[in-house]
C-alpha cells in the first residue's frame, strides 16, 4: 500500500473511532439514566414492602422517563448504524441532505463540548448525489470541526444543503473566536480540500471578520 493510501486509511479509521467513541459515550449516559431509574423503582418497591403507599403518579413519571431515554438511545443507534453502513459501498446513490443531517446529529456532542450548537437547514426536496458516502461524511465532519471555536456559549454553526445546477453544495458557517486562520487550520483546510478533490468536488473558504464560511461542492 502506498504511503498516501496508508495515511488515508489511518485517517479514516481515526474518524470512525472518534465518532464511535462519541456514540458509546452517549449510550453509556442513556444506560446510566435507565439504570438509575431501575434502581429507583427497586427503592420504591422496597419502601412499598415496608408499608409506604405507592405513588402512582411518580411511577407513571418514571416509566415515561425510561421510555424517553430508550427512544433517545434507539435514535442514537439508528444514526450510528446509518453512519457505519456508509462503508458498505465505495460509490452509492443517496440523499445528500439526509447524510448531512445524520452526520451533524452525530457531531452535536462534539459541538456542545466546544460550546457550539449545530443548526442544519435542509432543502424541501432530496438532493440526490452519487459518490462515496463515508468519505463525504468525513468531509462534512471535518468542515464542522474547522468551525468549532465559538466565541460565545451555545453559538450556532449552520450547515445548509442546496442543489446548485450540476453540483450540490454544503455550506458550513459560523463565528470563530480565533479569527484568522493559523498554520494548523490551514493544514486542515488543505486536507479537507484534498478529500473533496478525491470526490470530484471542491472547497471554497471565506473569512469575513469572525465569520468563516466553507462551501463544499460535489457533483450531483
Amino acid at each position, binding site marked *: 500500500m502506498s504511503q498516501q493510501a496508508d495515511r488515508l486509511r489511518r485517517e479514516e479509521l481515526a474518524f470512525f473511532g472518534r465518532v464511535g*467513541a462519541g456514540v*458509546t*459515550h*452517549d*449510550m*453509556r*449516559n442513556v*444506560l*446510566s*439514566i435507565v*439504570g*438509575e*431509574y431501575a*434502581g*429507583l423503582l427497586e*427503592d420504591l418497591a422496597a419502601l412499598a414492602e415496608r408499608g409506604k403507599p405507592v405513588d402512582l403518579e411518580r411511577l407513571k413519571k418514571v416509566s415515561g*422517563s425510561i421510555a424517553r*431515554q430508550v427512544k433517545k438511545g434507539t435514535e442514537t443507534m439508528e444514526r450510528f448504524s446509518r453512519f457505519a453502513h456508509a462503508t458498505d459501498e465505495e460509490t452509492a446513490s443517496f440523499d445528500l441532505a439526509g447524510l448531512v443531517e445524520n452526520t451533524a446529529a452525530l457531531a452535536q456532542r462534539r459541538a*456542545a*463540548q*466546544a*460550546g457550539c450548537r449545530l443548526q442544519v437547514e435542509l432543502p424541501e426536496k432530496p438532493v440526490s448525489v452519487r459518490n462515496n458516502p463515508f468519505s463525504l461524511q468525513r468531509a462534512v465532519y471535518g468542515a464542522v470541526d474547522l468551525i468549532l471555536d465559538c466565541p460565545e*456559549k451555545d453559538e450556532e454553526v449552520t450547515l445548509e444543503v442546496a442543489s446548485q445546477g450540476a453540483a450540490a453544495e454544503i455550506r458550513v458557517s459560523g463565528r470563530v473566536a480565533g479569527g484568522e486562520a493559523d498554520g494548523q487550520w490551514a493544514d486542515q483546510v488543505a486536507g479537507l480540500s484534498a478529500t473533496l478533490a478525491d470526490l470530484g468536488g471542491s472547497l471554497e473558504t471565506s473569512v469575513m471578520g469572525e465569520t468563516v464560511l466553507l462551501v463544499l461542492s460535489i457533483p450531483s
Partner: protein
Amino acid sequence: MANERVLLVDDEEEFTQVLSERMEARGVGVDTAANGPEALEKAKAAPYDAIILDLAMPGMDGIETLKRLLGANPELQVILLTGHGTVQKGVEAVKLGAVDFLEKPAEIDKLLEKIHQAQATRMLLVEERAEEKIKDILKSKGW
C-alpha cells in the same frame, strides 16, 4: 460515621436528579452542578466529603475541572464517574490527584463505598492538619 455530603457534577440533569434522590434516600447529602465553573463555585462555598465528577462536559471538561478543583484545595476527594472512559484518561485523572475512577453505569452501592472511603480519607487529612497545627503551637511556645 457522620452522614456524608457530596457534590455531583454532570451535565446530564436527569442523571444527577435521579442519582441525587437515591443517594439522599440512603442518608447522603447531595448538591449538584451542571458544569465545571458551577462546580468550582460550590466547592469553594462548602466542604464536601467527595466530589463525583463527570469527565466529558461541555466547555470546561472533567480533567480541567479536576485540575482547578485540586489547585484550589489539594485535599479534595474527587471521584471520576464517566461514560467517556479509557484507561488513558483514568490514569491521567489519578495522576492529577483523583482518588478513583468509575465507568458509567456504576452501581450505587459501589459508588457509596467509594464515598465512604473518601470521607474517611478526608477526616484523616483534617486530623493530621489539626495535629500539625497543635505541634506548631507547642513549638512556638517552647512547650
